Structures are given as structure tokens and as C-alpha cells.
């Protein structure tokens, strides 16, 4: 890859100061505060497109300015006539057709050039230039993301949710599917969208050039909580990713006796919908909660994974995320039981 990889990053950075010249860009104080912005991107699946985006924006802005300048000039170059006297004036002056000939002759080659650029940039991001390291299946649910990590060399696989971990600097293959309605996978800093269509397998790829956290969110309207179907991608260096993988490929180990009451309650009340690998909880309707305590956020990345939020979520998720499928558990888990389950869930590192 690459041609696109090498070619793209630099001109994009060079063009960045242009953002300051667009008056409205001043409204937002810099792009760094915009984790969803694709005015600058950080992966080879996005960078050639970002360059094209800046190029097309420049052409679009120039076209609009030139044409509206001509329009304004056309209006003000005459002393305007006034009614009702104007009704007497009538003439067919000037060679107006020249405008159409020149205008079309100038704009057509520009449009042709844009079409060529479009095909080239699209071709540059269709596939990674080198073999992918691993495959992650992303399965959309109303309103969360199921993630299946597959490593064919190690013949390992395990399931996570909502928080994708990838090694930085390496292309990763994504297989996109849906369990219910159409969703769309989108992490703007890393790549464009690809839909998750039920009954259809869509493939795409992604690569984070640098370590870091990247925000994404569902981009195809999918019902009541479309707005809160957030995705988080964590790109680690090779060693950290290896460690993360090894920890997460293991089922959940034994838990301390202190939380065994909470574990039993969890198996009874939560296991129908949630899975914790290595336990009796094998439900498939909700996110897999193996190692859930290590995730950064809950509720499809809308609340921090802190004790207060987590407890609130277990007690009354529908208030925190209206129409969510998870029922309020407060009645089934009165007082101490809720705390016990919370202790257990927080122990799932």
C-alpha cells in the first residue's frame, strides 16, 4: 500500500492551515477537539480520501466564489431599472451564448479531472496493500456492537463488545454483518462507512497509523437509540496488543469468594441474556460481558465504566438509555443484591 499511504499523509498536513482561512472553521477551535472529524485522518484507509476531500472542497469553494462573484457582478454592473418605466425597455443585447460555451468548456474538463481523481482515490482505499494481520467480525445489534476476534494462525477466537482493539500500523480485515436492522460501521479518523446489512456479508479493512483511541458511531439510522450506538477503537503497539489479546482470549477465571454471591445472582438474573465465558452465563441477546471490567465505557460507549454509572445501568438502564433492550433490574435485585451483582461485574477484569 503503499502509494496511497506515503502519498497522502503529508499534503493533508500541509493543507491543514487552510482550515483557518475558512471563516466558519473559526467556529470550532481547532480540529483536535473533534474526535469524529475527518478533516484530518490517521490511517491509510482514509488518508487518500481526506486529500481528495480537501481538493474537492477547494474546487467547490472556488467554483462557488467565482460563480457568485460573476452573478453579483452581473447584477451590479448596470444601474438597475425601476418599475414601471422599466416595462418600456426591451432589448436583446450582447452575446450571451458565449457564457454557455465558455462556462461549459471550462467546467467539463474540471469535472472530468474530478471523476478521474475519484476513481484513483477510491481504488487506493479499496483494499490494503499488504496481508491483514487478523480478522474482526463486527455484528450490529440494536443498539450495540458485537465483536468477534479471529486469529487464523493461532486458531483462536473470542467475543467482545463495543470496544475494538487492534494493533497499530497493521491492516485489519473487518467482516460486517447485522443481527437485526441495517447499521453502518464508521470510525471517521480511520476509514469511511460500510453498512452492516442483515443477510449480507460486507468486507472492509482498517488501519490505525498511530496508537490511540478512536471514536466511531453507527451511521445508518437504526431506530430509537441510533444516536447512542457508539464505537471505540483502541490501537495499541504490538506488545500491548499481544498482552491484551492473550488476556482476552482466555475465559473468565475464578472469582474471589467475596463476589460469589453476586456471581450466583448474575447467573440467575443476567445469564439469560449475557455471556461470561467460562461460566454458566451463556445468553446471546446482550453484549458478551467477559472481561467487561477492563472496558472503558458502558452502554455502547455512552457512560464511563465507573461504579456509579454501572450500578445505575444495572438498576435502571431504560432511564439512562430510553428504549434500550436491557430491562431495569432494580426490582429483581433489591438493595444488597444489586451491590453484590455490581461487585461481581466489576471483578470481571
Amino acid at each position, binding site marked *: 500500500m503503499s502509494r496511497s499511504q506515503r502519498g497522502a499523509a503529508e499534503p493533508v498536513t500541509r493543507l491543514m492551515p487552510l482550515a483557518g482561512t475558512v471563516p466558519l472553521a473559526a*467556529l*470550532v477551535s481547532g*480540529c483536535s*477537539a*473533534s*474526535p*469524529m*472529524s*475527518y*478533516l484530518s485522518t490517521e490511517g491509510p484507509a482514509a488518508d*487518500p480520501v*481526506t486529500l*481528495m*476531500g480537501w481538493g*474537492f472542497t477547494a474546487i*467547490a469553494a472556488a*467554483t*462557488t466564489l467565482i*460563480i*457568485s462573484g460573476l452573478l453579483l457582478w*452581473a*447584477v451590479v*454592473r*448596470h444601474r*438597475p*431599472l425601476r*418599475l*414601471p418605466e*422599466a416595462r418600456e*425597455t*426591451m432589448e436583446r443585447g450582447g452575446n*450571451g451564448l458565449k*457564457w*454557455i460555451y465558455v*462556462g*461549459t468548456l471550462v467546467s467539463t474538463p474540471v*469535472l472530468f479531472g*474530478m*471523476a478521474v481523481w*475519484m476513481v484513483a*482515490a*477510491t*481504488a487506493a*482505499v*479499496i483494499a490494503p496493500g499488504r496481508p491483514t494481520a487478523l480478522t474482526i467480525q463486527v455484528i450490529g445489534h*440494536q443498539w450495540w456492537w458485537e465483536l468477534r476476534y479471529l486469529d487464523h494462525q493461532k486458531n483462536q477466537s473470542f467475543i467482545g463488545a463495543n470496544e475494538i482493539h487492534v494493533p497499530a500500523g497493521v491492516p485489519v480485515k473487518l467482516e460486517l454483518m447485522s443481527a437485526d*436492522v*441495517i447499521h453502518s460501521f464508521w470510525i471517521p479518523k480511520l*476509514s469511511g*462507512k*460500510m453498512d452492516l*446489512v*442483515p*443477510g*449480507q456479508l460486507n468486507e472492509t479493512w482498517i488501519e490505525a497509523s498511530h496508537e490511540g483511541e478512536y*471514536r466511531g458511531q453507527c451511521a*445508518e*439510522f437504526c*431506530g430509537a437509540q441510533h444516536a447512542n450506538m457508539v464505537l471505540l477503537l483502541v490501537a495499541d503497539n504490538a506488545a500491548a496488543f499481544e498482552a491484551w489479546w492473550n488476556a482476552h482470549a482466555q475465559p473468565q477465571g475464578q472469582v474471589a469468594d467475596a463476589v460469589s454471591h453476586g456471581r450466583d445472582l448474575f447467573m440467575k438474573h443476567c445469564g439469560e441474556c449475557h455471556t461470561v465465558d467460562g461460566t454458566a452465563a451463556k445468553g446471546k441477546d446482550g453484549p458478551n460481558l467477559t472481561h467487561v471490567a477492563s472496558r472503558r465505557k458502558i452502554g455502547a460507549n455512552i457512560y464511563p465504566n465507573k461504579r456509579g454509572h454501572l450500578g445505575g445501568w444495572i438498576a435502571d438502564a431504560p432511564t439512562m438509555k*430510553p428504549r434500550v433492550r436491557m430491562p431495569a433490574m432494580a426490582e429483581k435485585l433489591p438493595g444488597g443484591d444489586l451491590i453484590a451483582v455490581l461487585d461481581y461485574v466489576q471483578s470481571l477484569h
Partner: protein
Amino acid sequence: MQTPRLERVPRFASPQDVAGLEARLERLFEPTHGLRAWLGTVDHKKLGVLYIVTAFVFLLAGGIEALVLRVQLAFPSQRLLSPEAYNQLFTMHGMTMIFLYSLPVLSGIAIYVWPLMLGARDLAFPRLNALTYWTYLFSGLFLYSTLPIGLSPNAGWFNYVPLSAQPYNPGPGIDVFALGMVLLGFSTTGSSINFIATLARLRAPGMSINRMPILVWGTVTASVGNLFMLPAVSLCFFLLHLDRNYGMHVYSGYGGGPLLWQHIFWFFGHPWVYALVLPAMGIASDGLPTFCRRPLVGYTFVALSTVATMMIGYGVWTHHMFATGLSPMANSLIGAASITIAIPSAIGVFAWIATIWTGRPVITTAFLHFAAMIFLFVAGGVTGVMTAAVALDWQLHDTYFVVAHLHYVLLGINLFPVLGGIYYWFPKMSGRMLDETLGKIGFWLSFIGFNIAFFPMHLLGLLGMPRRIYTYETGLGWDRINLVITVGAFLLALGIAVFLFNVARSLRHGRVAGNDPWGGGSLEWSTTSPPPAYNFAVIPFVASRHPLWENALDEGPQRSVVRRGFVLDAGKETAGTTLLDGMPYTIVRIADETYVPLALAVAITLFFVALLFKALWIAAACIIAMIALTGAWMWPRAELGQRRAVRHE
């Protein structure tokens, strides 16, 4: 060459030469009074006004919905609306603006203006005109019927399956949407047929097709387009209804899969957006020359690029589906085809600018709206090229960038020229001028408000805000822009309010207009304001594109004749002419007032209501009623010459 089949040769005279002509026409055409005059009317002027007023009521409804949405989004994490309420409101907003305002308002203007521009006394099928109005009104009420009980459609105006399928959306909202769309399809199909037949037969003698106003080109292009695209939307919605209620499995895995819906819907949906703008561009193409004191530059180019836009528009529907996993080859071809549409669009833009450049502008409120349209069309067009670029669209798709683009083109090339057109033709319709000072205040409020509301949406899209989200968290760089947008939306609404106030005030207090307040060039300005029920006392003869400017332009020996013409007073009659050359061909009769179209519209609507409740016996009864009413409609009538013995030759 068709043989003329005039059953008699009408007199060629001026109205003054024929004793009692206008009084006789008055008696023939003048409507009865009271309720029948509206419920039974077949007069294109009344129906045109009904269409326009109804469309503006829906515009207000959709606008209020938009303002509520904007209040919800003004600040992050607001809880003014529940997600369900937000989703219903944005769906209703889109559906209202796209289906119940944009096309009907253009139909209304065309229904009013066409016969006057063409030198005819009505559309080709006056009773069909009444039927299509009533079905439009009833389908709008049908589509709004579940809003008061909070069960409106909630899956967006393009209503993707499986989100709109029964398992994920069991309420009545989607069925109301599906059946309402089929019902509305009856109306749009009927009005399209009416426009095409009118163009083919009712142009004044001498108005060959290269002399038609551009509005006529735009409307007829949209109408022919509608006849090809509407079956797709009616089919896809009707199949959805069957899928949801009778287990047809059209869009589930057993049948076609979810992308089948998208293909059929956009096969309709993309050409549809051109149908929403081409007639409006025609309004500007006819209005601008009047305010530039010269004919339109490049008439032939503009007319042909209108047709070309529609035709290319049929080949680009999957540019709404770039992210669904179609092959790169398919995507690139459609992307390139979509970019091609910029060429006919550019032709129109340069023709308009050249018209202003080589003319002498008269800066009226109408002119300002048309000039604003040119600017907004360019600004919305260039972003259309950006979203046509496949890989770039993978980023732009379903963000506020697309919301910005579609509002620039739809408001820019529909709402602004429509408002301009109303400023232009209101004097003709009402006999009074709209106030120019109020008009300019309203224009600047709405133009500035529009740009404050929609320009920042481009940036919001580039900063990654997806469309159709009911809320967003702070810290994403979206907060301030959203607040600005909401302020702009209210400014725009204020501009529209000033326009409506102006209309209400001017209806009573406006300056009296006279026949031709602007010095227009087409036939509508030759008759009185408002026009008599029969439009023209004699049918004029047309010798150029601008029958009323020939003396001023003085470009040739030929002159149109508008003060004299065919005297057609043996009944409600108008002249029928040939398709290409506009040669006199036959005498067309116009139906009298009748309640049959209204009754038929009621029966059709009840049929769909019965389907909604799955009351199939009532639906069957409605079908019988429809057949009976169609029989009453088709029953031979003396005034239409259907009861004379046919002479075989």
C-alpha cells in the same frame, strides 16, 4: 402531418366585434356560488390556488416540525424530545417537505399558470385535475392521521427495511406511510398525465414546442419522469404493506433482501428530486428575463439541459447506496454518471447569469429570489459533486454534510424560486401587488437565515456529526455550531412569516396590479388580473417565444395576435392544436362543475383507510363505489359533445 379535424371553422375576430361575447363566455364559465363553487370546481385557477395553499399549509407543518427538532439539537444531551418523538418528527418533516410540499406546490403553480401561458382555457382534463387535488389533500391528511396519537411513521422518509418491517416496527405508522404513498401516487400520476396531455393538445395556435415557456418544459419533463418513477415507489410501498400484513416476504431473507428496497426506492427517489426542482428552475427561467428586460439566453440549451438532467437522473440511483457494499466498479460508474449531471446544471447557471449580464436588471423581490436560487444552486451543486465521489461519500454519507447539501438544493431550487414565482404571479392571481418593502425584508431574513442555518451544517458534517441522531454528547466539537444552526432556522422561519403576512395583507390592501405590472412577455400578461373564468375572450395566435415583446424587440416581420383570435363560444371550448407545430387541430370541450371527482377521491381514500384497518369487505365495497363513480364520470355528456351521432368518414 395530422389532418385538421375542426368540426367547424371558428370566426377569427376581436372580442369587440362579436356582440355579447364576453357576457356569453361569462355565463358559460362562471361558477356557481357557495360550497359547490369550491367542492365541485374544475377551474384550473381555483384548483391551482387550492394546491398552492394546501402545499403551504404542509410547508408550515414541516417547518414547525423542523424548528422543534432544532430546539432539541440546540444544545448537547437535551431531553426535550424522547428518541421516539424525535424519530417520528424527523420522518414527518422529511415526508412532508419531499412529498406533500415540494412537488404539489410546483403542480399548483403550473396548474394555475400553464393554461394562461399557453393561451388555453383550462388543462386538458379539468375533472382529473379536481380528482388529483382531492386525492392529494386526502393523502396528506391520511399521512398525518396518526401524528396526534403519537404513532407516526418513524423510519425516515426513505423508510429502509428491515427497520420499517413488521418485527422491528409493529405500530401502524409504517402502514400509514406505505398506503398514504400509494394514495398520493394516484394524485401525482393523474396530474402528470394531465400536464402531458395539456402540452400535447392545448397550446395556442402557433406555439410550436420551441416557443413554449421553460416552466412548461420543466413541468412536462418532471411529469414524464413521474410516469416512469411513480410505479416504482407505489410498488415498493405496496409490497412493504403486503410484507408487513400478509407475510409476503418480499424484503426479508426469503425474498429479495434489504437492498431490494433501497434499489426500488431510489430508482424512484433520485429522479424524484429532479422532479422537485426542474419546474422550479423553469419558474426562474421565465421570471428572470422579465426582470432583465431581455429574452432568456440560450433557450434551446436550457430546455434540452432540463430534459438531459432528468434522463441522466435515472441512471444514478445507487449513489445513495455507495456504502451498502456494491462492487467498486458499479460504484465508480454511478459516481462518474452523477458528476456528469453537473454539466447540464452548469448550462442552466451560465444561461441565467448571461441573461442578467446582458440584460438590464429590475431588482424586485421576485428577482432577488431568482438570483438567490442561482447562488444556492451552485453552492448545493458543488457539494453534490463531492458526495458523488464514491470514496469521499463513504465519509460524507449520512452526515450533516448531506443534510446541508440536500437543503441547499431543495430549498435553494424549490422554495426560493417558488417564493419568487409567487411574487411574480401573485398580481396575476389576485389582481393586487405584494408589498415590495415587506417582500425585501422577508427575502433578506429568509436568505440570511437560510445560510446561517444550513451553511454550518457542511462543517458539522465534516466534523463527523451523523444525521438522524436525537442527541449528541458534548466534547465532539458540535455544540456551538448546532446552536448557530438553530438560530438560523428561526430567522428563516421569521422570513417565511413575513412572506405570509405580506400575502395576507396584500390580498386586501395591495396596490391594484393591472394586466401587466412587470412588462412580461408571455400570454398570461395579456389577460386581466385576476383572469376571467374563461381566461381569454378569444384564443390568441402565437408567432414567437415572447408574444408580448415582439414590438419592443422588433426582430422580424412576424407578429403574434393577442387582441384578435378564434372565437370559441358554442360552449365551454378551447382550441386543440398539434403536438409539435401547434397547428389548429380540433375544438376541445371543457367539463362543467361536478362533484364526481370529489366523490371518487373520497371512495379511493376510504379504500386505503379500509386496507389500513384490514377491513377487506369495506375495501371491496369501496372498489364497487369507485367503479360506479367512474361510470358516472364516463357517462356521455351533451356539453362534452359525447352525445352527438358520430359521423363516419
